[in-house]
């Protein structure tokens, strides 16, 4: 295999594997921006994966599967929203319980679904003219699916909303200084509920992508810790959707390379890199003003009650 082909295959697979990471990371960025830490990403993803697969299998439509995955992910995130926003319970504990619940529930529900072939999965498409562009064509326009493009579009939209619209200001204000946001007439709880649900919908969709598009099959615990990479990625991205895209593809490339570089570098050590990176990024941004400028939400994990300061 020539160098050019090697790069094309690597980058094309990176795009495919990076998409679920990107979707879920975009969601978690919004959730955390509003001041809610949701450690239940893994649970929401696996529930989305199960819902998508079983729906696609029963109805024969992989697209309905993706919709079901997103809906179930969103519904599942409501548990965390209710516990951490309404009940003001500890967000760490609530998020962990969501992950455990998702893994347990999908494991039991998915019994008997393993090893079944899906009648139809999300089709891979090749754009007739565009795929002929040298180098970039086969990476971007050959054998990818519509969700890959949707996720890239979503980066632009979510970046724009967060930084250029009133909605974005409201989200950031609620995560930064809920009391001030409240005095401006923004409903802190409403914004937090919505952002948590957005996180759930995107995590569920990411799970669906895994089970009906990336590798159309259902296996127990098939997200395999991806949800925790998303938590790491959210920090790595400085809570910014655009850097989130960069991070998701970078980590996907590392994952893919961990197989391809096997003869030279230990795949286990390469797989540990994203987690080590996340810690290094946290150290790098921990110094004073940089931390603020980089967008770490000041009120992350802090519940809000009016008049208690």
């Amino acid at each position, binding site marked *: 295999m020539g160098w050019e082909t090697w790069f094309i295959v690597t980058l094309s697979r990176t795009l495919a594997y990076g998409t679920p990471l990107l979707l879920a990371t975009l969601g978690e960025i919004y959730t955390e921006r509003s001041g809610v830490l949701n*450690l239940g990403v893994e649970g929401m993803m696996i529930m989305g994966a199960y819902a998508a697969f079983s729906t696609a299998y029963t109805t024969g439509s992989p697209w309905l599967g993706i919709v079901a995955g997103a809906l179930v992910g969103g519904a599942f995130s409501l548990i965390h929203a209710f516990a951490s926003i309404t009940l003001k319970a500890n967000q760490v504990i609530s998020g962990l319980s969501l992950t455990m619940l998702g893994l347990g529930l999908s494991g039991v529900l998915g019994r008997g679904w393993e090893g079944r072939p899906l009648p139809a999965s999300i089709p891979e498409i090749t754009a007739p003219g565009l795929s002929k562009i040298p180098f970039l064509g086969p990476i971007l326009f050959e054998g990818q699916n519509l969700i890959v493009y949707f996720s890239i579009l979503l980066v632009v939209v979510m970046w724009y909303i967060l930084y250029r619209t009133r909605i974005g200001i409201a989200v950031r204000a609620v995560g930064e200084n809920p009391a001030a946001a409240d005095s401006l007439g923004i409903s802190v709880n409403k914004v937090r509920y919505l952002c948590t649900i957005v996180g759930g919908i995107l995590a569920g969709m990411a799970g669906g992508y895994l089970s009906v598009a990336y590798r159309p099959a259902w296996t127990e615990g098939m997200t395999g*810790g991806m949800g925790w990479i998303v938590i790491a990625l959210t920090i790595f991205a400085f809570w910014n959707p655009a850097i989130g895209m960069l991070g998701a593809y970078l980590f996907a490339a590392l994952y893919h390379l961990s197989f391809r570089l096997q003869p030279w570098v230990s795949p286990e050590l390469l*797989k540990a890199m994203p*987690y080590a990176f996340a810690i290094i990024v946290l150290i790098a941004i921990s110094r004073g003003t940089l931390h603020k400028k980089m967008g770490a939400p000041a009120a992350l994990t802090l519940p809000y009650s009016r008049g208690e300061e």
Partner: protein
Amino acid sequence: MKKPSLFRVERRPVVPGHVVVLVSILAIFAALVAAGIFFEAYGISAIRAYQLIAKGALGSKLGLAETVRRAIPLLLCGVGLTIAFRALFWNIGAEGQLLLGAVAAAGVALFSGLPDVLLLPAMFIAGFLAGALWGLIPAVLKARLGINDVITTLMMNYIAIYLVEWLIHGPWRGPSMRGFAYTDKFPSAAILPTISWTRIHWPTLLLGLVVAVLAYVLIARTRAGFEIRVVGENPEAARFAGISAFKTTLLVMIISGGLAGLAGVGEVAGIHRMLLGPTRISMGYGYTAIIVAWLARRNPLAVIVTSLLFGIIMSGGDVIRVSLGLPFQVINLFNGLILFFLIGSELLMHYRISFSFRRQ
């Protein structure tokens, strides 16, 4: 105009101990009912499932022994977590600290060349130190740079997992294991004794019980324990009183990480007798221990009871997995539900309903 009401919800200033116990038991009961409803909806008789769990985990000698052996790592990790949680350090990393303890124990067992009598004590010391070191990294990062402890301890878990994977696939892979990803078997002097035919490695169990008592004394009766509580409950006051949050954070994480490390030593020296895949060493003990410590309301002595409870769930889960054909993840279903009902009940506990029949 305010409507006359029959009852009023008011906040309790202090929650009495019996209310805590009662509410906790109710929460667990509610979680078991919820799991039961789920089983029924899914065509599995809930009564039969719980009968199997009770019989499997408590009703036979073998089941009881499995329950206790599952409780050992939960006890050690759980006691450590109560101390970290007391200082409001969110150690989600017991899983990784446990694995590091296992790695250190395996390193000493296989490569140290120490005389037989010293081998096991050296393994426990090395395991404690390795777990403590793994816990100290997030502690220093939080105490010095203010970095979120939840995220760092969580990330350290995954680094630990891949470290073990790397060791057993690479440098430590046993030449006698013919291509399997294990280290060689430990020499017999590095294997913990068990109670007759069971898998209860009693020295670790004893260690766990002693540690639970010591941790209770530390928290309730010593100056260091007092400082830990003040840092956790009122950081402002701690600063005024001249208590060093830095030292306290380091101390709780040396203890918490070290105890998880000891649990790792027990698992490899008492059960597996070699270093093997991380999910086979731990099966999520470090995460389950979070619920164990939370349910014990951060009281080290209560961990003795709660770790046994989750020992029952783990060994009972094994039984229904085999006899009802349920997947391994069924344990997570119980864990998640119990944890969820626990945090739900937290609010309930702090309020009481008082009935008033007077018109207002």
